[in-house]
């Protein structure tokens, strides 16, 4: 005798402890009179007991959790180092050492920036995974630019650079330092250029190289820009110049 059709989901909810007391009582009363539902309930319990056998739940490989927990992306290492540095230097400040003040001002931003650089590179590398690169995939700037509307609170310029060998590939949202950023994707031959754009305190113009990836950073009109790619640094600089002039932004000096 099969279970009552209208009771099947309720029986599951009973097994799962998702019914309140009143409904549990109702179902239990029904089960007491209905063989089909009692049998169904027993089967549900039997399946559950089987699934509770040791080893059904996959155990993570030894060391994986520790390895992931130790990823630089999961630590605030740079900022904690920096605050330790400030604490360490405090007596020096009291001792009126201008040099240590200079160091605080100097070391802080430096570490912050290298943390930023490694995040940019990580994002770039992650974006190269299959399916990660673009949320809106098009070579049309008039599609990419409006796509960002409402997703971020600024409008990144999306100039067309195909005639200069940097065809537009699309755009996506990414996250840098906990902020949502626009990532505009250009291609260069077989390479990818990720241009991250976000609003924030100006980072100024820098051209670091992180893990072999060239980065080009500049700030303009309250926005920060960071182009990341594995193309040669000179080509990336060329990209920056083209982007800034086509975007109607002031080219050069960065």
């Amino acid at each position, binding site marked *: 005798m099969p279970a009552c059709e209208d009771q099947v989901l309720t029986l599951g909810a009973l097994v*799962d402890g998702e019914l309140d007391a009143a409904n549990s009582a109702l179902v239990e009363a029904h089960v007491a009179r209905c063989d089909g539902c009692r049998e169904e309930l027993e089967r549900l319990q039997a399946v559950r007991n089987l699934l509770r056998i040791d080893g059904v739940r996959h155990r993570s490989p030894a060391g994986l959790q520790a390895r992931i927990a130790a990823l630089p992306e999961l630590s605030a290492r740079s900022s904690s180092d920096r605050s330790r540095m400030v604490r360490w230097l405090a007596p020096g400040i009291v001792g009126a050492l201008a040099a240590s003040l200079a160091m605080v001002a100097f070391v802080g931003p430096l570490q912050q920036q290298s943390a930023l650089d490694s995040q940019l590179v990580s994002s770039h590398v992650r974006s190269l995974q299959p399916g990660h690169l673009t949320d809106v995939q098009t070579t049309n700037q008039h599609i990419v630019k409006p796509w960002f509307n409402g997703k971020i609170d600024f409008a990144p310029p999306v100039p067309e650079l195909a005639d200069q060998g940097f065809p537009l590939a699309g755009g996506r949202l990414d996250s840098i330092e906990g902020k949502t950023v626009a990532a505009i994707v250009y291609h260069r031959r077989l390479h990818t250029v990720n241009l991250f754009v976000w609003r924030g305190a100006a980072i100024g113009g820098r051209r670091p190289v992180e893990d072999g990836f060239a980065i080009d950073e500049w700030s303009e009109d309250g926005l920060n820009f960071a182009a990341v790619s594995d193309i040669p640094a000179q080509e990336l600089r060329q990209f920056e110049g083209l982007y800034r002039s086509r975007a109607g932004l002031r080219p050069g000096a960065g």
Partner: protein
Amino acid sequence: MLFSGRSGRGTASASHGPGRANEFRRLVLPHFDGAYNFARYLTRDPVLSDDVVQDAFVRAFRSFDQVRGTSYRAWLFAIVRNCCRTAQSGSSGKLRLVHESALSSDDARRVEEQADPAPSPEDELVRRSDAETLHQAIEALPEPFREAIVLRELEELSYAEIAQVTGVPIGTVMSRLSRGRSILAQLLLPPSENSDAERSVK
């Protein structure tokens, strides 16, 4: 002031810099095993699972600031699920994260795992093969049923949490669970005494 321009940023990162990482460790990392198990059943691929879980934790840490008033576990599992989707949507099974390359030690570990276990009592062997049968049965479920079953039966999420992870209404969660369980029952349980329909199948 020499560093007045930086002081705002400095204070901000001191308050939710290391503190943020600690909070993440306290609230999210405890769900690591669950995240792994979930990824493992979604991808059905041990190697891919490692990458997916790593990707998921990196993403989770980045958007950790934006989580408010929700089940951290459900939030994390939703990220794991997205990462599985992404990993599988591309060239299936070919994904490899490049930015963390502990691959050689991983490979060694995997080889060890595949080697015969040290002499173990017979009941241990029996239990292993039971678990193996169950793995296969669960993996054979179509994905919507599989994820509901894993989240409910193995990870013990509530209906509301499963709904949050899978993005469907609770009613759908209930019917998926029901369907999943009935498939598992047919695969794993002896045909029920009273059920003519199921006896005839056998």
